[in-house]
């Protein structure tokens, strides 16, 4: 029963608890056979940069980098909000594996046919 699932994440180190749980839930979705996208937006876009998540670990959870690597390794996709990325002058040559910079249309196309989502 494959469906689609979106996890929207607006935080990075400014709320590591939310950033971590977002990827835990995303891993639950992709692990349950759902075509899953994590949409990084606002401060969340910083997580798309290689090395940013290194050493970040919320108490009681696996390291964030491990959660992200497992997500992508299981077939999850990471969409990175283009204007949020541009505003922060981040380097698009340093994206982590599985991440792609997208505009709104890409996300809307993914969700338009009907798609549950959860926001952090």
């Amino acid at each position: 029963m494959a469906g689609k699932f979106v996890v929207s994440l607006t935080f990075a180190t400014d709320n590591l608890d939310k950033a971590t749980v977002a990827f835990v839930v995303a891993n639950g979705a992709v692990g349950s056979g759902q075509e899953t996208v994590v949409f990084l937006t606002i401060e969340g876009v910083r997580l798309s940069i290689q090395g940013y998540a290194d050493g970040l670990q919320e108490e009681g959870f696996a390291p964030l980098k491990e959660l992200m690597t497992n997500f992508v390794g299981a077939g999850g996709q990471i969409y990175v909000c283009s204007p949020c990325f541009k505003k922060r002058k981040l380097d698009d040559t340093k994206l982590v594996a599985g991440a792609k910079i997208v505009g709104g249309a890409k996300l809307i196309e993914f969700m338009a046919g009907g798609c549950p989502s959860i926001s952090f």
Partner: protein
Amino acid sequence: MWVPRRTLADEGFAPRPAYHGAMTSDAPALPHLVWDAGELGCGDLVLALRGKIRDVPPGAVLEVVARDGGAAEDVPSWCRLTGHALVAATPPVYRIRRKAE
């Protein structure tokens, strides 16, 4: 005048085997592999489960020991989502038959 009572079979309903809910099995549910998931829970558990079910052949049974407090709800949900059959659930032990590919 006596009229024989009509049965469901007269109405075209065939007898069905007993319904056992989500826990169905056509063969003994002896595990091909036992996996102790320890305290893994939530996304960590199901993502690991996704990988572990591939370690048993289609039709074979994986026995999972999962002690996380949410596992009793999550494991049956995961089975319904993925199409694998939960053939036994006595927390913290679950037996899952891998679906045919």
